[in-house]
C-alpha cells in the first residue's frame, strides 16, 4: 500500500488539523487493506499455512486514524493487534507475511509468533507478548527523545485488559511525574479474551484513570475516524508543547475472536456481536465516502480487489521465501555470541551434519 503510506500523515511532519476530505479515500484504502489481510490471514491459519493469528476486525478506524495523526518520526509501541497502525507506518505487506510465516525474510528472523513484529526504520517497536510492558518503554523513549531535543512523541497501544497491568500503573505514573511527551492509546474493544470490560475494573471509564496520574483522559468513539484523528492530534500537540501525556480511550469492539485459538461464542452473545457489527467502522467510512461522492459502489469494489491482489501477490512471494537458517538461532542473544554460545552452535551444527537432528 505504497499509496496509503506515502500520502499518509505518517510521512509528513506538518499534520493538518482535521482529516481533509481528500485524504479520506487513502485512509479508507488502508482500512480495507487491513480488513482484507485480516480475513486472508484467518484463512491461512485455518489451512495451517501460518501458525496463529490475531485479528483486528472492528478496530481499523481507531488504528488507522490514530496512526494518521502521527508524524513519521514519532515512535510507536504496539501490542500484537496493531496491523492497521503498521500499514499506515508503511510496513510492506510482504514483510508482515514473512513474519507470520517466520521465514528468512522476516526481520524478526523467525523468532516470534505471528503478530509480534517491529521495524526500526518505521519507528514501530518490536512487540512482545506480556501485556503492558511496552507502556513504560514508550515513556522512557519519550523522555530520551526530549533529552536529545527531538520534537517527537511516543505512543503506546494497548487494550482495555491491559489497564490492569503493572506497567500501565508504572508507565502512566512516570509519564505524569516527568510530563513525558507520550500518548497512551487504549483500544477498549470491550473484551480481554473472555473478560468483559465491566469486570476488568470498576472505574466508570478507562480514560478517567488518567486523573490518578495527573493528566487528562479522553473517551472517543473509535469507529469515527474524524473523532479519533482530532483527539490524537490534540494529544500530540499537548505532548510536544510540554503539556504532558494524554490517555485516550477509543471505544471499539473486537468483531472477531481474540486470536485463532479463541472461540468467542463460549463467552459472549450473538446479539452483542450483531449490535456492534452495525457499527462496523469500514461500513461507516464507506457510507461517508459515498455521501461525499468520494467513492462509488464500483470504485469501492476496485479498492477491495486491489487490496486482495496486493495481499495475494505478497503472499505468493512470502511463501516462496526460504526458511530461516538454523545457525541464526545463536545470533542476537548478545551483540556478539559468547564462547559458550559458539560452542552450542557448533554442537547443533554437528548434530545437523551427522543427521541426528533435522532442520
Amino acid at each position, binding site marked *: 500500500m505504497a499509496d496509503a503510506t506515502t500520502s499518509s500523515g505518517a510521512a509528513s511532519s506538518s499534520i493538518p488539523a482535521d482529516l481533509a476530505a481528500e485524504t479520506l479515500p487513502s485512509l479508507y484504502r488502508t482500512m480495507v487493506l487491513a480488513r482484507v489481510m485480516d480475513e486472508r490471514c484467518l484463512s491461512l491459519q485455518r489451512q495451517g499455512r501460518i501458525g*496463529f493469528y490475531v485479528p483486528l476486525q472492528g478496530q481499523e478506524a481507531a488504528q488507522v486514524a490514530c496512526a494518521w495523526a502521527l508524524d513519521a518520526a514519532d515512535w510507536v509501541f504496539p501490542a500484537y493487534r496493531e496491523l492497521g497502525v503498521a500499514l499506515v507506518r508503511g510496513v510492506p505487506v510482504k514483510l508482515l507475511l514473512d513474519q507470520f510465516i517466520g521465514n528468512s525474510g522476516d526481520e524478526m528472523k523467525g523468532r516470534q509468533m505471528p503478530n509480534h513484529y517491529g521495524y526500526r526504520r518505521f519507528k514501530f517497536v518490536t512487540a512482545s507478548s506480556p501485556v503492558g510492558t511496552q507502556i513504560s518503554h514508550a515513556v522512557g523513549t519519550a523522555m530520551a527523545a526530549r533529552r536529545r531535543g527531538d520534537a517527537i512523541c511516543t505512543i503506546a497501544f494497548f487494550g482495555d485488559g491491559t489497564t490492569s497491568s503493572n506497567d500501565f500503573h508504572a508507565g502512566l505514573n512516570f509519564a505524569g511525574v516527568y510530563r513525558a511527551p507520550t500518548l497512551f492509546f487504549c483500544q477498549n474493544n470491550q473484551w480481554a479474551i473472555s473478560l468483559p470490560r465491566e469486570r476488568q475494573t470498576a472505574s466508570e471509564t478507562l480514560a478517567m484513570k488518567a486523573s490518578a496520574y495527573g493528566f487528562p483522559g479522553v473517551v472517543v468513539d473509535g469507529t469515527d475516524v474524524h473523532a479519533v484523528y482530532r483527539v490524537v492530534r490534540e494529544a500530540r500537540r499537548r505532548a510536544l508543547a510540554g503539556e504532558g501525556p494524554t490517555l485516550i480511550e477509543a471505544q471499539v469492539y473486537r468483531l472477531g475472536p481474540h486470536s485463532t485459538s479463541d472461540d468467542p461464542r463460549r463467552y459472549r452473545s450473538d446479539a452483542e456481536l450483531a449490535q456492534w457489527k452495525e457499527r462496523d467502522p469500514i461500513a461507516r467510512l464507506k457510507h461517508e465516502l459515498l455521501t461525499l461522492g468520494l467513492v462509488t459502489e464500483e470504485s469501492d469494489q476496485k479498492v477491495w480487489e486491489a487490496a486482495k491482489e496486493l495481499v495475494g501477490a505478497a503472499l505468493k512471494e512470502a511463501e516462496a521465501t526460504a526458511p530461516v537458517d538454523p545457525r541464526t538461532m545463536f545470533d542476537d542473544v548478545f551483540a556478539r555470541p559468547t564462547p559458550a554460545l559458539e560452542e552450542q552452535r557448533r554442537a547443533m551444527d554437528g548434530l545437523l551434519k551427522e543427521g541426528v537432528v533435522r532442520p
Partner: protein
Amino acid sequence: MVQAINRAMFEAMRADPNVLVLGEDVGVNGGVFRATEGLQKEFGPDRVLDTPLSETGIVGTAVGMALYGLKPVAEIQFVDFIYPAFDQIVSEIAKFRYRSGGQYPCHVVIRSPYGGGIKGGLYHSQSPEAYFAHTAGLKVVIPSTPADAKGLLLSAIFDDDPVLFLEPKRIYRAVTGEVPDGDHRVQIGQAATVRPGSDVSVFAYGAMMPPALQAAETLAAEGISAEVVDLRSLVPLDEAAVLASVEKTGRAVIVHEAPRFCGFGAELSAILAEKALYSLKAPVVRVTGYDTPFPYALESLYLPGADRIAHAVRATARAA
C-alpha cells in the same frame, strides 16, 4: 492429561469448600486450555473467579485467601506470564511461613502450563522451573502422565506448603493413560523409575519424558540399557532415587527443555559431582534447550528430542 487436571480440581472442590480457583479466563471460558472447564458451572463464580488481567493481583489475592485458611488454586495462563507475580511468589509466598516464625502458612497452589512444542515462540514456550527451584520455601512439581497429574495436583492442593504446579502443555492432549477415580494421590517428593535399566541413567520430567522413553526404546534395540527416571517433583527432590540410579549405572544423562546454563540439570549434575563422584564412569551430560530465548521457527531444533537424547546416551554409554 488436561482432563486429569480438570478432574483433580473437581474432586478437590467437591471434597473441600475451602478450595477455590482463580485466574484469567478460568470461569466462563473454562481456561484457554480448558483445564478449568465446567468448574464455574458447578461451583459458581464466587469459587471460580475470572480475574482482571493482573498476575500480581491473582497471586497477591490468593495469598490473602490462603492466610485466611482457604486453599486457592491460581492459574497463570502461560508460565511465561508469571513474572509480574514474581515478587509475590518469591518475596511473599515462599517466605511467609518462615518470616512469621511459622504463624502464617501460605498454601497457595499455582498451576501453569509451561514448555515448548506448540509453536508458541519466545513467550508461550518457556520452562522457568529453575527460578522457582532455587527459591527456598516453594515446592515445584511437574507431572508427565495423566495419572500423576491428577495425583500430584490433589496432593498439591491438600499440601501444607505452597506448590508451583507446572503442566507440560505440549502433552496436555498427546499423552493419554488410565487415571484412577476418586481421591487418587501421588506423594510429592518421589521420583518414578519409569523404565529400569543398567547402562545409563536418564533423568527427565514433564514433556521431556516421552522423548526420553522413546530414546530408551531405540537404544534398547542397540543393546544399550537406559534407566529412565521421571523426577516428578523438583522440590523436594528425590535425591535418594537419583543417587541410587547412578550408583547402579555409573552414567547419567539429564534432560530438560530450559536453557542449560544454571538450569535444573545443573543441580542434578552438581549433586552427582558431590555425592556420587566415585561411581561416575563417564562425564555427566545435559541435553537441554540452548542458552538463547525460545525461537519460534526453530523450536524443533531447540527442544531436545528422542534423537538428540539417544545420541547423548549412546556417547555416554561408550565413554570410558
